[in-house]
C-alpha cells in the first residue's frame, strides 16, 4: 500500500509539473510532452505493480524464514533431549565400565587397606561425581580416610569430625542403602552441613557393610544437581559399596588364611628344627652308645679269652682228670664263652659300622665262587636237617662289595633259614639284575614270621617270640648286623613272610 501511495504521489507530481509546463509550450511540444508523460505514468504504474509483487514475495519469504526458525527450535529441543539421553547413557556406561575395572582390581587386593586405597579420580569422575572420600571405620564412631579425591586434607578432616560428632557416621553405617543428600531438598541440618563442608550441592553417602559388620564409609559429592535419575545413581553407588564390602571381606579372609598358613609354616619350621636337634642328639647318643659298646667289648674280650683258654686247658685234662660232671660243666663254660665271644664280635662290628670305623671294600665278587663258599659254611647244618639247597643266578655273574662282610650277610641269612625250616624243607637263593642293582633273595619253607615281629626283626637284641627261638640260643644281633652291613654297601634289606609257609629276605645291592 505504501508503494502505491509513493507511485500516486509521484504521478501527481509529474502531472502538476506537466500542467505548469504546458502553458509555455507549442502544440508539437505539448503532444511530445504528453507522450513522454504518458510513458512515465505507464512505467510508474508498472513499477508499482512489480513492487507490490516483490513485497508479497518478501512477506512469504519472511514467513517461511520464521517457519524455518520455528522448526529449528523444534529440532533443537528434540536434539537436546537426545543429547540428554545420550549423556545419561554415556555416564551409565562409564560407571559400569569403571565398576568392572574396579572389580578386577579389587579381586587381587590382598589386604583390606589396599581395598580402601582403590578409590581414585577416574572412579569418582566416571560415576559422575567431583569429589570422593573413602574411609576405614574401626568403630561406629570413628573414621580414618584412606582415599581422598578432589578434597584437600583440611576439608577432609573437618568432614571427618562432622561425621563423627553428629551421629551421621552411625546413621550411614546402619543404613542398608546409600543416602542421597541434596541442598534443594528437605534434609537434616547435619546433612546440610555435610554438603556445605563438601562444597557440593548434592552428594551420595554409603556405608561399606560386609557380613562381618560395618568397616568403612564412602562419600561422593557432585557439583551439579541430583542428576536426571537419582534412583539409578543410588543403585550404582550401592553396587560400588557392595563391591568394596565384598573385597574387604575377601581380603580379610585371605589375610586370615594367609596368616594361618604362615603360622602353620612357622610351627612346622619350629618342629622341624626341634626334630633335627633331637635327631642330632640321638645320633650323638648313638655314637656314644657305640663307642661305649666298642670300649666295653674290647675290655670284655681279653678276660673272655682268658676264661675260654683256661676252660680249654681244664677240659684238656692238663690239670688232672675231670670227672664227668666236671667235664660237662667245663664244656658249658666253653660253649657260653664262645657264644659270648660271638656276641661281642657282632656288637663290635655293629659299633664299628655305625661309627664309620669300618670301610667296605668295593670289589667285584664272582657269583660262581662266592655262593659255594657260603654254602660250604652252612652245609653241615643243612645236611643235618635234610634240607634241599637251590641257587638260581639268572645270569647274574658277579656282586660288588666287601667279600668278607657280604659272606657274613648270606651265612647269617642261610643259617636263619636253616634254623626255621623243618626237616626236608627247601632253601632257595635267587639273584636277578634290576635297575642298576643286584637283587638277592634267600627263601625258606619254614614256619614264617609272625606279622607283629616283622617290623622289629632288624632291631638289636630282638628275637621273635616263637618256639624255635625258645629252644635255640642266639645273640639277637645277627639280622641287626646284616642290616648294618647291607646299608654300609648303600643297599637295603627287606623281608616278606607268610606265617606257616616261609620267609623271603631280599637284599638289594648296587650293581657297580
Amino acid at each position, binding site marked *: 500500500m505504501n508503494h502505491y501511495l509513493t507511485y500516486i504521489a509521484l504521478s501527481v507530481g509529474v502531472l502538476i509539473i506537466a500542467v505548469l509546463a504546458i502553458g509555455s509550450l507549442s502544440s508539437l511540444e505539448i503532444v511530445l510532452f504528453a507522450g513522454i508523460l504518458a510513458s512515465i505514468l505507464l512505467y510508474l504504474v508498472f513499477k508499482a505493480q512489480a513492487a507490490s509483487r516483490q513485497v508479497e514475495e518478501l512477506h512469504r519469504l519472511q514467513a517461511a524464514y520464521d517457519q524455518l*526458525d520455528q522448526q529449528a527450535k523444534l529440532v*533443537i529441543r528434540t*536434539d*537436546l533431549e537426545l*543429547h*540428554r539421553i545420550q*549423556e545419561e547413557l554415556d555416564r551409565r556406561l562409564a560407571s559400569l565400565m569403571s565398576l568392572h575395572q574396579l572389580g578386577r582390581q579389587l579381586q587381587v587386593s590382598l589386604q583390606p587397606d589396599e581395598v580402601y586405597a582403590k578409590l581414585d*579420580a577416574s572412579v569418582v569422575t566416571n560415576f559422575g561425581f567431583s569429589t570422593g572420600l573413602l574411609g576405614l571405620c574401626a568403630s561406629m564412631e570413628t573414621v580414618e580416610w584412606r582415599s581422598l579425591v578432589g578434597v584437600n586434607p583440611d576439608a577432609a578432616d573437618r568432614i571427618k569430625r562432622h561425621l563423627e560428632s553428629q551421629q551421621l557416621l552411625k546413621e550411614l553405617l546402619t543404613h542398608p542403602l546409600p543416602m542421597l543428600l541434596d541442598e534443594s531438598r528437605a534434609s537434616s541440618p547435619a546433612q546440610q552441613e555435610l554438603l556445605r563442608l563438601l562444597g557440593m550441592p548434592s552428594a551420595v553417602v554409603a556405608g561399606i557393610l560386609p557380613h562381618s559388620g560395618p568397616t568403612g564409609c564412602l562419600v561422593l559429592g557432585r557439583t551439579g544437581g541430583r542428576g536426571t535419575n537419582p534412583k539409578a545413581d543410588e543403585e550404582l553407588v550401592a553396587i560400588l559399596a557392595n563391591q568394596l564390602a565384598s573385597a574387604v571381606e575377601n581380603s580379610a579372609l585371605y589375610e586370615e588364611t594367609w596368616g594361618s598358613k604362615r603360622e602353620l609354616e612357622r610351627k612346622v619350621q619350629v618342629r622341624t628344627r626341634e626334630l633335627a636337634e633331637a635327631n642330632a642328639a640321638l645320633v650323638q647318643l648313638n655314637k656314644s652308645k657305640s663307642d661305649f659298646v666298642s670300649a666295653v667289648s674290647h675290655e670284655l674280650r681279653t678276660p673272655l679269652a682268658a676264661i675260654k683258654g683256661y676252660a680249654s686247658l681244664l677240659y684238656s685234662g692238663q690239670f688232672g682228670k675231670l670227672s664227668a660232671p666236671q667235664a660237662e660243666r667245663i664244656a658249658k663254660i666253653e660253649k657260653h664263652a664262645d657264644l659270648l665271644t660271638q656276641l661281642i664280635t657282632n656288637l663290635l662290628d655293629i659299633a664299628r659300622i655305625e661309627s664309620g670305623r669300618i670301610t667296605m671294600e668295593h670289589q667285584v665278587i664272582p657269583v660262581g665262587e662266592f655262593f659255594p663258599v657260603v654254602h660250604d659254611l652252612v652245609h653241615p647244618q643243612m645236611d643235618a636237617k635234610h634240607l634241599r639247597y637251590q641257587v638260581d643266578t639268572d645270569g647274574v655273574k658277579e656282586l660288588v662289595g666287601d667279600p668278607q662282610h657280604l659272606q657274613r650277610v648270606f651265612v647269617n641269612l642261610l643259617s636263619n633259614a636253616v634254623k626255621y625250616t623243618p626237616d626236608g624243607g627247601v632253601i632257595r637263593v635267587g639273584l636277578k639284575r634290576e635297575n642298576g642293582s643286584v637283587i638277592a633273595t634267600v627263601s625258606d619253607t619254614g614256619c614264617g614270621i609272625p606279622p607283629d615281629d616283622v617290623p622289629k626283626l632288624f632291631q638289636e637284641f630282638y628275637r621273635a617270640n616263637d618256639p624255635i627261638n625258645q629252644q635255640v640260643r642266639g645273640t639277637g644281633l645277627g639280622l641287626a648286623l646284616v642290616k648294618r652291613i647291607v646299608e654300609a654297601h648303600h643297599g637295603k634289606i627287606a623281608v616278606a613272610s607268610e606265617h606257616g609257609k616261609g620267609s623271603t629276605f631280599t637284599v638289594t645291592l648296587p650293581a657297580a
Partner: protein
Amino acid sequence: MKADAFRAGKEAAERALAQGAFANARLALVFGSSWFDQSALLQGVRRVLGEVPLAGESTAGEITAEGPASHSCVVVLISARTASWGLGVGDAVDRQPRDAGHQAAHAAMQQLRITPRNGFLVFGDGLVTSYAEVVRGFQEILGTGALIVGGMAGDDGRFASTSQYADDRVLHRSVIGVLFGGAVRMGASSHHGFAPISKPRRITRAKANILYELDGQPAAAVYREYFGSEAVDRMQRDGLTRQGIAYPLGIQAESGKEWWLRNVVSFGQDGSLACSGEVPEQAWLQLMIGSRDLALEAARHAAQQAIRSLNHISCVLVFDSVVRRTLLGAQQAAQEIVQIRQTIGLSVPIGGCYTYGEQVPSESESIVNRTAVQTSSVLVVAIGT
C-alpha cells in the same frame, strides 16, 4: 595423591625422553591432570629432565599418541637443535588482562633476542574470559607478525581453579607464553565443525563477555525460545552440560564465512548470558549445531592446514575443546586423534590437552591481527622447519 602425581610426572618425562635423543638444552611442554598435586607433578618431571625450561598447564583431559586420556600427564620435548625460544609469564590475567599480555610478551622477547619471531604459544587460565584484551597486550609488544595460538587450561570439568606451569612454578590466573624464533616455524589451524541453525540475531547490547540483548530482547529470553524453559532451568541448576555445549553461540565474522563460538557459562539475574569470550555489539549472532561427523571432519581439516606450510615437522600439539570431547563421546574422541595422526604422519610425536578455550589463527581480515578467541574448536599446532 602426592606420590601418584610425582610418579605420573616422572613416568611422562621418561616416556618423552625415550622417544628420541634430545640435545642438552630442550623445552618441556607439560599437560597434567588437575586431579594431581600440581607441584609434585612438576617435581616428578624435573626429577627426570633436570632444570630444563618448562611451560604448560592443567587440563580437562590429556591427548597422547594413543588417544584421549584422563588423570594422566603428557610431556612433549622440543630439542634446541630445532628451536629457539623465550618464555614469559603474565600475572593477574583476570584483573589486568592487557598488562598481563604485555608482561608475558616482554619477558619472552627478553629471552629470545633473535628474529624473526615466528610464533607465540600461549597457555592461560581457562576460567578467565578476557583473552581478547590479553592478545592486544601481546600484540602491542610483539607486533602483528607473530602467530599467536594456544589453549586455555582446564580442571577436568570442575570449573573451580586451573593451573599454569612455568619452570618449577605452579601459577593461577596467569598466562604463559613461549615465543619461538630463528629457524623454527609454526603452522596452526583451527576448525570447529559447527553450523548455524537459527536465524541471525543482532547483538544490540553487550559488554566484554556479557551478552545482554539480542534484537532488543533480553538474551536469556531468546535462549529460552530455542531450548525451552525446562532445559534452561536444568542448565542453570546443573552447570555446563552436554545439552548446553552442544549448541554454542556463533558470532558471525564480517567476512560472513567464519563464526566465533562462545559457550554460555552462566545466566545473569537480569536476563543476560555470561559467555566464554568477548561478545562484540552490533555483530550478528546465531545458534550453532554440531554433529560428530562434522566435528571429525573439522579435526582432519585443521591437521591438514596446520602442516601444509612446513617442510619438516618436529612435533604436533593438539588443543581440543573439552566441549568437543563431550560431544564426540569416548569412541569418536579416540577416532579424532587417529584422524589427526593419520593426517600428520604416524611417526610425528604428538601431545596436547582438552581445553576450556582456544586462541586460534583467523583467516578473516576483519579479525584484528589474525588471531581470535575461540571455544568448541580443535586447534592443531605443528612445530618444525
